[in-house]
């Protein structure tokens, strides 16, 4: 992916595009900090189980509902499990669900958008009507509807969140495609006898990359938030799982006696979503001022 993007940037902005981007991006201090935080999150997602101070599944009935202390920095839950360890391990689930849902939605949406914009006519109307219908519903209701059909579970959450990500990408890529389709550059390539698919993937798609990346980042935050909400509602990850939304849901019953059980998983969700949103804003300002929220 990086190589394709480098090609694209080199094609449209000859004057050292990376340095230009870097110069603009560095100025966005919040976005920069968010990027560092996100890198740390991914590291934790990879090595979480090994850096967790305790076994995240192991119940310890001598240690139930302990507040934050020297041994358990973030306290323990109703089964005496270490909350810090569960949050660290749960990072992987959170990022995996968000990434796979948005990635699936982005790929399908991008393909639909390319087809729609490049071929136009009835393909375009069909795809765009389909997107209108999907967009007419708020994401979480659509996701709940899909889960009502498929049944609860993490995989189905990914499917549900992925589906409502499709129309957004389809629209953005379509409008970019419409612009680039008629550019002289593409006209010239076409006149040289290039095949449609070659033009789409070699020229039009790379030209949309900056929009896609900006939007991808922003959607990740939304996707993580929606997935956590679904788990909280009992429609996603089920209780023993250290998914953050599910942990919060389990902590609800101890709101009066042990509120910290809900503090930290919620904080983890918020910081993660916040980081993706801030990074998205920063990338937008540095890469693609056209995309509005």
């Amino acid at each position, binding site marked *: 992916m990086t190589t394709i993007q480098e090609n694209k940037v080199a094609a449209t902005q000859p004057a050292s595009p990376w340095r230009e981007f870097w110069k603009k991006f560095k100025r966005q201090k*919040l976005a920069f900090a968010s990027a560092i935080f996100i890198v740390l999150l991914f590291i934790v997602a990879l090595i979480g189980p090994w850096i967790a101070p305790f076994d995240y599944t192991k119940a310890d009935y001598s240690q139930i509902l302990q507040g934050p202390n020297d041994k358990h920095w973030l306290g323990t839950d109703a089964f005496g499990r270490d909350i810090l360890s569960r949050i660290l391990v749960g990072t992987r689930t959170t990022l995996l669900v968000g990434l796979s849902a948005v990635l699936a939605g982005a790929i399908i949406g991008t393909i639909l958008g390319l087809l729609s914009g490049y071929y136009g006519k009835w393909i375009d109307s069909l795809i765009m009507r389909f997107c209108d*219908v999907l967009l*007419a*519903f*708020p*994401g*979480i*209701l659509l996701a*709940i*509807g899909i*889960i*009502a*059909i*498929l*049944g*609860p579970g993490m995989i189905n959450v990914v499917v549900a969140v992925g589906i409502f990500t499709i129309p957004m990408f389809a629209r953005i890529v379509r409008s970019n495609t419409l612009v680039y389709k008629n550019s002289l550059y593409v006209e010239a390539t076409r006149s040289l006898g290039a095949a449609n698919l070659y033009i789409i993937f070699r020229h039009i798609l790379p030209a949309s990359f900056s929009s896609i990346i900006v939007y991808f980042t922003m959607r990740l*935050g939304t996707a993580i*938030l929606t997935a*956590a*909400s679904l788990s*909280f*509602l*009992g*429609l996603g990850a089920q209780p023993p799982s250290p998914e953050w*939304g599910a942990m*919060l849901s389990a902590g*609800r019953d101890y*709101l*009066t006696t042990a*509120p910290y059980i*809900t*503090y930290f*998983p*919620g*904080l983890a*969700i*918020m910081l993660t*979503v*916040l980081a993706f*949103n*801030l990074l998205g*804003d920063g990338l937008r300002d540095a890469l693609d001022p056209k995309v*509005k*929220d």
Partner: protein
Amino acid sequence: MLKFILKRILQMIPILFVVTIVVFLFVHMIPGNPARIVAGADADQATVEMIEKKLGLDKPIVEQYFVYIGNLAKGDLGTSLKTNEPVLQEMKSRFMPTFWLTVWSMLFAVIVGVGIGILSAMKRNSFWDYLGMFGAVVGISIPSFWLGLLLMQWFSVKLGWFPTTGLDSWQGYVLPSITLGVGVAAIIARFTRSALIDVLKEDYIRTGRAKGFSESKIMIRQALKNAMVPVVTMTGLQFGFLLGGSVVIETVFGFPGLGSWLIDAVATRDYPVIQAEILLFSLEFLLINLLVDVIYGFLNPQIRYDD
């Protein structure tokens, strides 16, 4: 104007038709036999057949659809599999709480959101602008169920100002409305700011300055109404977000509305209830869109005369 509204209502009819088909097909999209899923794996054939009959699955599909439409026309939304009560009856009792919840939270969101948006646009690039906009990103990023629990923990459990759950008095609305409104307030704040900043670049604002108006008067007398045109449209669309959010918030606060009912229905696979709710939510969306168009017409004189 009346003609315009009428035209929009007529345009809704085919959409409604599509909605009924989608809602009707809902049960048919469930993989496997829905009756078997409802009855459970151990249920005998007789129970499954009884549920099939209840769901109307025992007839040919086209006939099923016409029966469904016929029942809808009579105001029959089916019978809950869980309680054996007519769905409509329960829906009636749960409609108003959710209605008021969305209205109050929208009110909260508009006041807070537009207020922060105006302040940020006026004090552009100042500390207050940065604070307001950072607050807005936090508002968008904060999980509503977590915020709900925090507010509940603080104001209900610790301070005892509001009930933790349920809806016995007006106090029951306060925390859920605020929780639900925060995300929308954040979106409105960001949008209001950027809409105002766009408007402030317009030539007629320069005219206003040339007339000798102060910046705050420019903002309120010249720019705000223009900026409100896109803000109203966007705010109307956020009603959808509120309906979606109400599902989560009602569950957090044990609020007896449509949202918590939907989650219960999904959990217990009470398909007639789910179908009825999808239908109702779709209707609400169409209505909201219509309302947004009408208000838009009032705010923007150019639109009114085009039709």
